C-alpha cells in the first residue's frame, strides 16, 4: 500500500510537471468554457426561460460540470500519448504499482479542472453570477465537482487505453460527451424539451450532477440531487476503474 502511494505521488509529480511545462494545455482547457459562458449568457440566454432564477445563475452549474466532464478528455489523451510513445511499456516493465500510472494522470487532470473552475467562478461573477448558497453548501458543491472529475476521468482513461492512438482519441474520444452534456439540465430546463427526450434528460447522471451543484450554489433543496450524484459517481468508478485497469494490462497485446 505504501508502494502504491509512493508510486502514485511520483506519477502525479511527473504529470503535473509536464502540465506546468505545457501551460497552453491549461489555457485552452479554460478558454473553451469561458467561451461557453459568454456564448450562453449573452447569445442564447435571452431566449431561454429559467423562471425566477436568472439565466446566468442557472447556467454556471452546467458550465462547471461540463468543464470537469470535458477534462476527462485530457486523461484519455495523456494516457494514449504515453501508450504510443512506449512509455506505458516501460512502466509496465518496472516493479511499480501499475494503477499508479493511471491515478497519477487523473490527479493531474483533477488539478487542471480545479484551476479551470476557479477561473470559471471569476468569469461567472464578472458576467453576473451571484451564488447564494452558504459557504458549507458551496464547499460541498466544490466537492461534488471533484468527485465528478475523478469519476469521469476513469471513463477518459478507459477510452484512451482502448483506442490506442492519439488520432483516434482526438477524433472520437469526446463524442459521447455531447449528448450527455447537452441533453441535460446544464443549459436549458429539461421541461422545455419534447416529452420523448425529457425521459433521458431527466434521469441521466449528468443532469443529477448539474442539479446538485446548482441547488447547492443557489441555496435550494439539494439533498436528493447530492445523494443521486454521489451514487452515480460511485457507479461510474465501479464500472470504469476495473475496465481501464484491464485495458492497461492488455495495452501491449495488440500494439
Amino acid at each position, binding site marked *: 500500500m505504501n508502494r502504491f502511494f509512493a508510486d502514485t505521488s511520483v506519477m502525479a509529480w511527473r504529470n503535473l510537471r509536464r502540465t506546468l511545462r505545457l501551460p497552453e494545455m491549461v489555457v485552452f482547457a479554460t478558454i473553451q468554457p469561458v467561451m461557453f459562458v459568454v456564448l450562453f449568457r449573452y447569445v442564447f440566454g435571452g431566449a431561454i426561460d429559467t423562471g425566477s432564477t436568472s439565466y446566468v445563475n442557472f447556467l454556471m452549474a452546467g458550465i462547471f460540470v461540463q468543464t470537469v466532464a470535458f477534462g476527462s478528455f485530457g486523461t484519455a489523451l495523456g494516457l494514449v500519448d504515453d501508450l504510443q*510513445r512506449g512509455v506505458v511499456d*516501460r512502466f509496465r*516493465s*518496472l516493479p511499480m504499482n501499475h494503477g499508479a500510472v493511471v491515478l497519477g494522470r487523473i490527479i493531474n487532470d483533477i488539478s487542471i479542472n480545479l484551476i479551470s473552475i476557479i477561473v470559471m467562478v471569476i468569469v461567472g461573477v464578472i458576467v453576473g453570477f451571484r451564488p447564494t448558497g452558504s459557504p458549507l453548501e458551496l464547499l460541498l458543491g466544490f466537492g461534488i465537482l471533484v468527485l465528478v472529475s475523478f469519476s469521469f476521468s476513469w471513463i477518459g482513461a478507459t477510452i484512451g487505453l482502448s483506442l490506442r492512438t492519439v488520432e483516434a482519441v482526438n477524433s472520437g474520444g469526446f463524442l459521447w460527451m455531447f449528448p450527455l452534456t447537452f441533453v441535460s439540465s446544464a443549459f436549458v430546463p429539461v421541461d422545455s424539451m419534447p416529452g420523448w427526450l425529457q425521459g433521458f434528460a431527466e434521469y441521466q447522471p449528468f443532469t443529477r450532477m448539474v442539479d446538485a451543484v446548482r441547488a447547492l450554489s443557489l441555496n435550494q433543496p439539494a439533498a436528493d440531487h447530492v445523494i443521486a450524484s454521489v451514487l452515480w459517481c460511485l457507479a461510474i468508478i465501479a464500472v470504469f476503474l476495473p475496465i481501464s485497469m484491464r485495458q492497461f494490462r492488455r495495452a501491449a497485446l495488440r500494439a
Partner: protein
Amino acid sequence: MEHSRAELAVRARGVEMAFGETRALRGIDLDVPTGTVLGLLGPNGAGKTTAVRVLSTLLRPTAGEVEVAGIDVLREPAKVRERIGLIGQAAAVDEMLTGLENLTMFGRLHGMRKAAAKGRARELLTRFDLDDAADRIAKEYSGGMRRRLDIAAGIVVRPSVLFLDEPTTGLDPSSRLAVWEIVRELVADGTTVLLTTQYLDEADQLANDIVVIDHGTVIAHGTSDELKGQVGGGRVTITVEHAAQLDLLTGVVRAVAGAEPVVTAGELRVTAPFEGGARHLPELVRAIDDAGITLAGLELRPPTLDDVFVHLTGRSTEDADQEQGA
C-alpha cells in the same frame, strides 16, 4: 547449449504467442548464459519484439515456459521486474522532463528514496556523458543523447538481465558506436544482455551467441563463426550491366559454382557460395566471358552474417524488410 539451469539468465522453452489468428511466435527456445550477450536476429515482423515482450513480462505467452534470472516469468512477473531492464524500440523517456528528472523518476519507481534516486541519476548522467544536458528537457536532446538517456533509465537499479530491442535503429554511426560501448561496459560489469537487431554487423560485434528467427521460429543458433561456417567457404557476388543478361548469368554461376545462386534483380546482382576460392575464379570469369555477358563487377569475399541470413531464409535482410513494409 549445454548449460545447467542455474547458469542461465534467460531460459525459454516452447514459447508460443498468438494474437487472434496471427501466430507471432511458434515455439521458441532460448538459452542465455549469465554474463553473456545473445543477439536475436531477424527481419521486421519475424517476432523479435514479441519475444522481448514475453521475456520482459509485458506479454503473457499463449504457451511455453520462461525463466528470467532464475524466476518463473509467468508465476512471478513482479519479482522478475525487479531484476530486469527493458529498453524498447522507441526511446521511452518523458520528453517534457529533464534528463535528471527522468532518471530520478525511474529510480523512485524502482522504490529508491528521493536522495538516493537523485544521486544515482547524477552518476548515470556522468557515465553516459549527459552532464551538460542534465537540466534540459529530453525533447531538446539529439537522437543519440535520447538513446543514451533511455539506456540509462533501463539500468537505474543495475538489472541482472537487460533487454534491448533494436537499440541502434535510426542512430547515426557515432551514436551507434557509443551504444555498443555502453553495452560492452554493462556486460563487463556482469549484466546479461539480450538484444534484438536487424543489423548483422551489430550482432557480429556484440553477441556471444546469435539466434536467428523468422516467421516466429528459431531457424538457426550458434556463434557468429559457427553460423558463418554453415554457409561454407567464400561467396562470389557478380553484377551485370544489362538486366536481360541476369538469367544467363544465373545459369553460368549455377554451373560453375555448383550451387543455387541468390538473385537480387533490382540491383542486377547474383550471389553464390564459391567453395573453390580464388584458384577457381579464372574459370568463372572465362565462363561468363564465353557466354557474352558484360560484367559490371565481381567480388570474392568470406561469408558474412548477411550470407547466413540469405542461406537460412532465402531472402536478404533488405528483401525481408520490404516484404514487411509492403
